[in-house]
């Protein structure tokens, strides 16, 4: 039987699967499954009760506590610093890879592309332990001053974010019209001017989207950071991890809510810019 209520008056076609109740049920159940845990988590960060289950009224106390929790704020500052530096470096490196792969034919290119994709596909745990072993082996000092003591985490983050950035910028470059470049050359531009004045401006939406992706990937990373951070260089996810191990508390809920809002916003802006960029071509 056709379900009409939700979609207006016309009868259901044979492939309007969303109007068939078994499919609608699975779909609704999936969305409930995906969202209820996160939404309750966010809602209960405003709950005026330590027990965290019974709703006892609205409060923003836990956000206040969050901002007074020095350890957590330091960890948050570390996370932002790491994300900022890894974003800048992965943008530069990612853009270079994108230009290289988009522009040039060279021997063993498929192998090069495959190797470049390795940081995206290998299990995070393997990369984490490799970084741990690497920094231990080269004798990376542990007693540097802030923010230089974050450098090893930043290096590890750049290694796994810049291949992602390269993929995004390359997709943007695929829409580039080479005639623009020829026009620039006809008008007297040299190699560098072509890049500075034509190609890089064209890459801009890709750079912004790639930058936001790199920032959120770095901000969100737990596993690789877990293996590279020391007692003095705790990041926000690592700190939350140690809090989660103890118990479920409204502070953790509040901290999680802040991070959810930041990453969802950044990713949404990134996707929006990317769509805007590709729609224009």
């Amino acid at each position, binding site marked *: 039987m056709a379900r009409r209520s939700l979609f207006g008056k016309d009868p259901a076609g*044979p*492939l*309007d*699967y*969303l109007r*068939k109740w*078994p*499919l*609608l049920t*699975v*779909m609704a159940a*999936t*969305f409930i*499954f*995906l*969202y*209820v*845990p*996160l939404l*309750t*988590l966010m809602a209960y960060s405003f709950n005026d009760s330590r*027990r*965290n*289950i019974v709703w006892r009224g609205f409060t923003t106390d836990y956000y206040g506590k969050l901002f007074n929790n020095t350890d957590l704020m330091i960890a948050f500052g570390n996370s932002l610093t790491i994300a900022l530096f890894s974003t800048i470096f992965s943008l530069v*490196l*990612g853009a*270079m*890879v994108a*230009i*290289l792969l988009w*522009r*040039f*034919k*060279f021997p063993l290119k498929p192998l090069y592309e495959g190797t470049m994709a390795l*940081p995206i596909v*290998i*299990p*995070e*745990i*393997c*990369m984490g*332990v*490799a*970084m741990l*072993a*690497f920094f231990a082996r080269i004798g990376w000092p542990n007693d540097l001053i802030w923010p230089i003591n974050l450098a090893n985490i930043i*290096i590890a983050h750049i*290694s796994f974010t*810049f291949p992602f950035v390269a993929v995004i910028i390359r997709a943007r470059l695929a829409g580039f019209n080479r005639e623009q470049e020829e026009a620039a050359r006809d008008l007297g531009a040299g190699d560098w001017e072509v890049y500075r004045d034509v190609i890089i401006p064209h890459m801009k939406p890709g750079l912004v989207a790639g930058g936001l992706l790199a920032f959120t990937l770095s901000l*969100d990373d*737990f*596993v690789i950071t877990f*293996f590279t951070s020391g007692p003095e260089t705790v990041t926000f996810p690592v700190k*939350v991890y140690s809090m*989660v191990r103890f118990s*479920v508390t409204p502070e953790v809920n509040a901290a*999680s809510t802040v*991070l959810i809002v930041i*990453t*969802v916003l950044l990713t949404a802006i990134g996707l929006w810019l990317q769509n805007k960029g590709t729609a224009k071509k």
Partner: protein
Amino acid sequence: MDSWYKFKRVFLSVGVPPTFWLVAFFLVPLALIWVFSFGEKTGVVGIDITWTIDNYIRAFNPDILKIFAKSLWLAIAATVICLFVGLPVALGIVYAPSKWKGLLLLGIMLPFWTNLLIRTYALIAVLRTRGYVNFTLEWFDAKIRVLFDLFGMGGIATALLGERFQALELLYNDNAVILGLVYVHLPFMVLPLYAALERLDRSYLEASLDLGAGHLRTLWNVVVPLALPGIISGIIITFIPALGSFLTPDLLGGPDSAMIATIIERQFKSANDWPFGSALSFLLMYITFGALALRAVMAKRGGSDGLEG
């Protein structure tokens, strides 16, 4: 595309820095643990590279094999559930009215953008003994008892429900890990399935339905064979990260739901046996590469799965 030797200067200036970075800060660390995996532990920090394969042989002792088998089982179970949930969801999105399509896809993607740790933590809050599920059950339990008492049949309620409410142990077992893996990896399955189904010619489905096949038969005999490359791609893309999961078994699992990543972490942090941990890491990577190669072969045989390019 230009040939590299025609623009050597540009080629080198964009090629050298990222290549250097990849080699120095990715390939060298990987090579280092590859070498470690053939080493022997001497003392607390010392590692002697003796090119022994003992570490790999140790991975095949029954205790470790059991953990490998457990990891495979948990990852496969989660992948299968993702497939059975993801296929109807993807089908629903593909044939949804176009104004809904983007919104529904976004709805699947959105939780994916939130931190893995936070999503896992959200599940803990739902499942724990004093979590929302048990709290809801307890509420119903209390209401039913009151209802029975009202009719003077309190004895029946006690006989049915026991003396008092027993919280379900939903957390810290294998089921919690499977649920967590499904929760985290569902988008990995839905997106490739969506890409594959989206390119399916509707008229095949309509023909099948017109000729009298039911929806399930159409699904099994028409949709699944046509979308097979996408389905296989979805299975592999879901399976790989599920197999290498560290946080999910660590936070949701019990003492015996350790996965490969858990024991790798243990070798590097508490047990301090880096050569063995390195060997385990490489075994995990070899399984990953095997799965990726399988996907590449399948994609070649069945045409592109719509994820490249």
